[in-house]
């Protein structure tokens, strides 16, 4: 068989390589992972660019995402329809952003999307509370949650609208020393 593969055309692979932070091998491996999520659904031949989307439930059961409290939001953020149905492109995109080599700005964009539960492009108090609750698995008292969220908005809110815009978030998150190390999934 050698190097010849029939899943993707060379142009497709090149395109994937340009658009993501993966190499050819990694893309093929991703395809394999994508395929094993739903072998009957995912064709092996993607040369004609089939339109196959896997549901959220299948993806969030991946071992890499299983323990993540934000897994649903992650998948939803990368899905085109916002429901978590990922095509292969979205799949690759997701892991590309969460990879080690993705730049900080890109990650911040998607982190903002992930934490924006109501998708209003603002991190309001409710978003933060939900984030905190998911983080602590509801073990905090509501008062504590409120306190923390208020404190967070106090810290990061620069324009004073008591909610975090993307600019506030980006400003705050880029100063976080461990953001990149935590916002990382290895596949």
């Amino acid at each position, binding site marked *: 068989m050698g190097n010849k593969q029939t899943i993707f055309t060379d142009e497709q692979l090149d395109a994937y390589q340009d658009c993501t932070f993966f190499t050819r091998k990694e893309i093929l491996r991703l395809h394999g992972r994508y395929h094993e999520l739903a072998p009957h659904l995912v064709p092996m031949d993607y040369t004609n660019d089939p339109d196959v989307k896997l549901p959220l439930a299948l993806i969030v059961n991946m*071992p*890499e995402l*299983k*323990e*993540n*409290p*934000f897994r649903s939001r992650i998948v939803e953020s990368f899905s085109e329809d916002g429901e978590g149905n990922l095509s292969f492109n979205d799949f690759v995109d997701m892991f590309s952003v*969460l990879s080690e080599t993705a730049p900080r700005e890109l990650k911040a964009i998607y*982190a903002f999307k992930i*934490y924006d539960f109501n998708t209003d492009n603002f991190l309001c108090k409710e978003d*933060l509370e939900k*984030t*905190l609750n998911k*983080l*602590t*698995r509801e*073990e*905090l*008292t509501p008062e*504590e*949650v409120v*306190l*923390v*969220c208020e*404190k*967070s908005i*106090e*810290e*990061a809110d620069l324009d004073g609208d008591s909610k975090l815009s993307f600019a506030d*978030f980006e*400003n*705050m*998150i880029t*100063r*976080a*020393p*461990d*953001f990149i*190390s*935590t*916002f*990382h*999934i*290895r596949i």
Partner: protein
Amino acid sequence: MAKNSRLSLASASDENYTFCWRVFCAWDYLIGNPEAAESKGAACVAQSTTSGAVLISLRILANILVLLSLAGSIYIIYFVVDRSQRLEQEKPELTLWEKNEVSVVVSLITMIAPSAFELVSQLEMYHPRTSLRFQLARVLVLYLGNLYSLIIALLDKVNSMSSAIPVSSGNWSDSTTFLATIALPEEDGLSTVAPDAAERQNGTFLLGQEANRTRGATPVFLNQTALYGYNMRTPQDPCWETYVGQEMLKLSIIDMIFTVLSILLIDFIRGLLVRYLSDCWCWDLESKFPEYGEFKIAENVLHLIYNQGMIWMGAFFSPCLPAFNVLKLIGLMYLRSWAVLTCNVPHQQVFRASRSNNFYLAMLLFMLFLCMLPTIFAIVKYRPSQHCGPFSMLIYYLQAIARSLKVTNNQLRMQLQTGRYCGVTAALLCPPTARLQDTEGGDKKPDPEGHVTGVESCVRSGSPRRNSSVSGFESPERQGGGGAGGGVRTITQSAARPGPNRAQPGPTGPNRAFGASRSPSTPSVTQEHREEHTPNRHPGHPGGASGSCRSKSHHRVAYSPSCRHADSVHSDPLFRKSFRPAPREASGLAAAPCRFHTTRYVILNERDAPKQLLRSNARTPRRYHADELVDIVELCPRSVRRFPSPGPAPGPGPAPPPPRQRYQPHLDEEEEEEEEDEEERRRRRWRDAFASAQSHRPRSLSDLHQPPRPLHRADSGPPNPRGPPHWSRDEGPRHQAAPSLTESDSDSVASSSDQQHSSTDQYIQVIHYKDKGPRARGKPAKPEPKAGARLNVSEPNELFCSNV
């Protein structure tokens, strides 16, 4: 630092997004297993649930722990220094550990404490950057505390040492005092210790007194405690600076050793273990507990700052410490760079530590100021040890130098005052002889004998030289004043009559000596006579004097080769005899530096004599020098140009003879009287001349004039050592001279202590008193004609030496 500030200002300030980060960055997306997720969740909960109060209390607790550990480290260091001190006192031999205990303890604390602080800081739940700052500050305080407590403990010991120093006698080693002080020194005890100080070096348990056994042991221990030989075994006393310097050096060395060990153990071995044992270990060593060592930039920088502080503290006491430190740092740099590349992983938390440059530089500056304080305190408060170090005898040396300079200055001044007559040329010409003579005859008491001796010696010395017209005519005063007249007499006599021995006019030996010293060109008869006389005269004197005379005449010969023997020597000696003894004995010339034996012979040649005389006169302002010069002048009128009225000058023929005649030994009273008159006149003339030449002379001239009279009278006596009687007689009439002479004597005595040549310079005037000698006619003095008439000296030239 300015550039760093600019850069840090350009970037936004580091706001504290603690809660935000806790919310958004708490979760590690890499977590894949449920246990880790749960623990992480719990951690997040814990972080979020800690309310302000709890947090504050936790932080206070952490700070308390840190402060306790700092205080503990300071106390431990002080305790260890104290213990080492006690060990030195109690035990004769210290083990390696005990010797280096202090340094080891300090280095151990330096290694362990930062890790402990890191553990404690986890309680505080600060943001990593904040917690790093806290960590750095605590570690820095710890380092400073260590250094300060070490230096203060050492200086305390020094203080106890220094306090004992004044009690003890001056020549103790500081170590003994130091040790003694520890044991409540007692003065007697200390004094007993002193004798044994010398033994200390051997390291034997000395200070042999039983009572001071403990004290004695300490110096031994001090010597032994110096593990590294820098500036170690100062023979007599380990100075306290040495001790402190040794301790700092030990600290530096052991710190280096510990650093190397920690790098090897904590980084390298750990890396090896993690790499190769993780396969066969229960858990993943690489991600769990041991993990690879991280290269902590901040703490390494702090260690460098600590190293620098150590150097600054010890540099004053141990000057080689910076040099050693350079080598140490270079070695450590290479070792660490290798370790970082092979054993370390980068710090997980990227703090952009480079942006903290200003912080580190500020810390360094702070450390510099703090480390200078103990050194300055030690400089100011503690006396330098007396037996070592560049500052120990500084004051003493300065004082000693100032004192010696003052003494030298005084001596030189006195020499100048007394030795002015002793011309520089004379001094230069006859330095060795002067000394010889000095040694020989050096008593300053008026000793006609001595003077005579001197003269005699001079004469004797002059004799060997045939051609030289130099005759040693030492200043009788030098000898003690006695010989002047005698000398004069001798010369005069010898010069005046070839036949009659010099002794005739001059009972004193010097006459004969003079005669002997007559230049060889003088009629051999006279010379022989002189020589004969001289040996009879003063057999005792001789050696040195003659030698000196000889040497002087040598000089003279060279100087004025053309000199002929001045026949006028006859007159001169007489003249001299008369006055010389008085001045001589009175003046300190003879007494002091102008020893008889130190006479110099100044050849006053016909041509040169005047110059010489002038010169010598110039140099010897003393009256009695002038007296001598006047004598010379009178005796050798020709040589004295300054005599304006060369009464004798125009008539060289008649001139010389008269003086000569005058100076002839006065066998008969009549002649003497006549001569005396003539001499008086001559002297007056000379005196005038001198006065004109030099204002300071007149008195001396007059003085000079006076003495001859009595001398002449005395001369008439039998040629026996009539020193004393001569002197007495001479002194009588010489009213003027006496005081001046005495004054001069005293002065000379006083000032010429160092001068050896000035007063003993003799002007050997080559007086060509040939009856027919045209030369002699040159510059006669007024008295010359008369003297010349008197003098039937057959000798063409007569030389006489006059002490100047």
